[in-house]
């Protein structure tokens, strides 16, 4: 209190009075200096409480960083380890965050790299494939084998028109490399040393020929490589090209160089050896990595047409043949289905041939014959037929004829399951048939009310009673005689049928005779002529197999009725007898 300058000094005051005065002064000071006192308290609090400082620092920190950063690199050097440690810690703690952050940057770059690699591989593969089977492809394969180089590389070398393999962006004054790109598979030497040498060579050439600074080396060629150089104000582009590039490529180089100069004017002007800013020229320089290949020779249009025509003809022919075969096969199946006694249970048409399986009645038509009729080769069809009895009326009738040995004079017909016999037959056959008919498969009943039965003796008698009369000196059968001969002919056929079932044969003698008029020789001749004429009238050539016919003559003395009228001796008589088959001796019957 003694240092307080504002306090009045009054030595005469009593202690009580001093106390009162002090209180007054305190009150007065509070009234007068309250705002300042508050500010002083705040300042003291700030000084005493260090927790307030970071807030204050945060207000000026960005400006402080910026100011120090402009002065020197010390701040960066100090912060770098902490930033690095923090980055490493972040990656360890939460790698996903870092991945998410850099994915948008790395994704396109990776995709581009993969696309370029695939493109290069596809290009090489396509070329190899295109040329693998051609004539020159075989020649190149021989070359690859001879030189020990991969076939794809040999193809590439022969089909390549040009390919920009490397592009250098070089600082013009120092010859230092700013950036470099190379095509897939290009052989790349040390780019920094190459950049220096490229610059040295240009200086050498310019100096050697006394060229002015604006006259520059545009290109030089070594073997299959050409180096093209495009000059800019601060940098130049050198492209290493394999093959023969088109002049338009130079425009691409110049355009890329112009872009780089436009994008990086400061970095180029103040270049001091730091090539980092020129990493951004990657895309620009890659746009110069052109490649052009010779397309594989196209086959001539005429050859293509001929080849195409031949293929179409072949296909058409094959199509027609296949269609015809299909039609034949379909027709065959229809024919087989329609054929009585044949049932097709399986039919297949495969690449190896045709396959048939089914049922066949032994009396049915031979399937091979139907196959031939359908226009197919029986050898091309593998058929398996299982035997069975068909109930088809036609086949049942055939089966009945076959089993019952019915004579030709008998007609058998099938009505449902009934066998009906009509016509004429011997009593023996009729009797036997009544016993056997129902044993024929498909037949349950037998009817023969329409069948006329005759006996063999009756037939023999009917034949043997026949006499054919002739005019004098004639061997012509008279019309009046022919009617009788028709009935005899029928009897002979019936006889033939009847005896054939009993294992016997018929011996028919046709004997001619004459009256006494004329010479004996003539009469014998006439007798024989009359016998043959009767035989012809009987249809002797068409008589059954069981009948043996003998035509001859008889002497006048041996003739029937030789003692009668002369007209009774101008006749032909028939004599039918039975003989046992395969036996020489006759068993004549009355």
């Amino acid at each position, binding site marked *: 209190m003694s240092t307080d300058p504002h306090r009045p000094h009054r030595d005469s005051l009593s202690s009580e009075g001093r106390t009162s005065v002090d209180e007054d002064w305190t009150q007065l000071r509070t009234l007068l200096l309250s705002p300042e006192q508050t500010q002083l308290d705040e300042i003291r609090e700030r000084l005493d409480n260090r927790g307030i400082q970071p807030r204050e620092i945060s207000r000026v920190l960005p400006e402080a960083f910026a100011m120090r950063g402009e002065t020197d690199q010390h701040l960066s050097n100090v912060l*770098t380890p902490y930033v690095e440690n923090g980055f490493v810690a972040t990656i360890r703690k939460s790698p996903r965050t870092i991945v998410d952050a850099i994915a948008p940057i790395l994704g396109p770059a990776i995709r581009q790299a993969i696309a370029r690699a695939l493109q290069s591989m596809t290009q090489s593969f396509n070329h190899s494939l295109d040329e693998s089977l051609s004539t020159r492809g075989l020649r190149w394969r021989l070359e690859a084998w001879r030189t020990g180089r991969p076939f794809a590389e040999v193809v590439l070398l022969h089909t390549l028109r040009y390919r920009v393999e490397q592009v250098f962006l070089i600082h013009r004054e120092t*010859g230092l490399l700013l950036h470099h790109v190379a095509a897939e598979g290009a052989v790349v*030497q040390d780019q920094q040393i190459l950049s220096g*040498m490229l610059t*040295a060579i240009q*200086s050498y050439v310019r100096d050697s020929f006394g060229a002015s600074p604006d006259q520059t080396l545009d290109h030089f060629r070594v073997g299959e490589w050409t180096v093209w150089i495009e000059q800019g104000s601060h940098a130049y582009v050198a492209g290493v090209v394999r093959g023969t590039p088109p002049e338009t490529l130079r425009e691409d180089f110049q355009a890329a160089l112009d872009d780089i100069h436009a994008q990086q004017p400061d970095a180029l002007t103040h270049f*001091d*050896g*730091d090539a*980092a800013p020129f990493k951004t020229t990657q895309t620009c320089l890659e746009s110069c990595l052109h490649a052009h290949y010779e397309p594989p020779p196209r086959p001539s249009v005429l050859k293509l047409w001929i080849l195409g025509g031949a293929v179409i003809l072949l296909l058409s022919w094959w199509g027609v043949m296949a269609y015809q075969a299909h039609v034949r096969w379909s027709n065959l199946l229809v024919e087989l289905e329609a054929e009585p006694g044949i049932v097709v249970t399986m039919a297949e048409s495969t690449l190896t041939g045709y396959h048939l399986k089914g049922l066949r009645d032994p009396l049915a038509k031979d399937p091979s014959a139907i196959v031939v009729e359908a226009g197919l080769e029986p050898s091309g069809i593998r058929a398996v037929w299982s035997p069975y009895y068909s109930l088809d009326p036609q086949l049942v009738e055939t089966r009945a004829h076959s089993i019952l040995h019915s004579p030709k004079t008998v007609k058998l017909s099938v009505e449902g399951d009934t066998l009906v016999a009509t016509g004429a037959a011997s009593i023996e056959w009729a009797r036997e048939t009544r016993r056997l008919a129902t044993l024929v498969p498909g037949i349950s009943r037998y009817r023969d009310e329409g069948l006329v039965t005759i006996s063999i003796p009756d037939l023999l008698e009917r034949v043997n009673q026949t006499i054919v009369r002739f005019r004098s000196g004639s061997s012509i059968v008279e019309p009046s005689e022919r009617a009788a001969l028709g009935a005899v002919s029928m009897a002979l056929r019936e006889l033939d049928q009847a005896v054939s079932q009993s294992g016997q044969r018929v011996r028919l003698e046709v004997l001619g005779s004459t009256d006494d008029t004329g010479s004996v020789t003539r009469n014998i001749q006439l007798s024989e002529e009359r016998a043959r004429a009767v035989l012809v009238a009987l249809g002797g050539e068409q008589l059954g197999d069981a009948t043996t016919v003998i035509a001859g003559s008889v002497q006048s003395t041996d003739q029937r009725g030789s003692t009668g009228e002369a007209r009774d001796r101008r006749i032909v008589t028939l004599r039918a007898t039975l003989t046992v088959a395969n036996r020489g001796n006759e068993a004549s019957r009355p």
Partner: protein
Amino acid sequence: MMQKKVCMLGGFAVGKTSLVRRFVSNVFSEHYHTTIGVTVEKKSVKIDDRDVTLVLWDLYGEDEFQRVRDSYLRGSSGYILVMDGTRRATLDTALALRQTAMRTVGTVPFIAIINKADVRSEWEIDERAIEQLREQGWTVLFGSAKLGQGVEELFVTLATQIVQTSPIPSDSL
């Protein structure tokens, strides 16, 4: 990666190429020396934990038949003057080349190295001459192509001086 162009200069047969041969990367034959007068090589050094690539233009030794081309010197961030300790004349050549370099690229860092330090007794360049050079501000090192001495120091010293002249930006790492 920081790159700096550095020229190696010296009289005829002072051993420039021999001195650095085993320390540098090279893809070209020395034949280029006698054809276009230069071969380009590369040497990487670490300065303050940062890589600096010195692109070395090894120029053909100057003599009465061939002079160093000024155009090769252009754009150099520094240069190396090589002398043969056993031949006094190479010091004179180095002095002349120093003038040429100053005329072409201005005041840039340079290092002088006197070859054949392994046969010091045969030297014609004496200590006094060397002292005079140092008094003129030259950095003079001794090297031996035979023993491979002094070369690493040569490159590191020159690179350090170059970097100090033009600091490496931090983002060039």
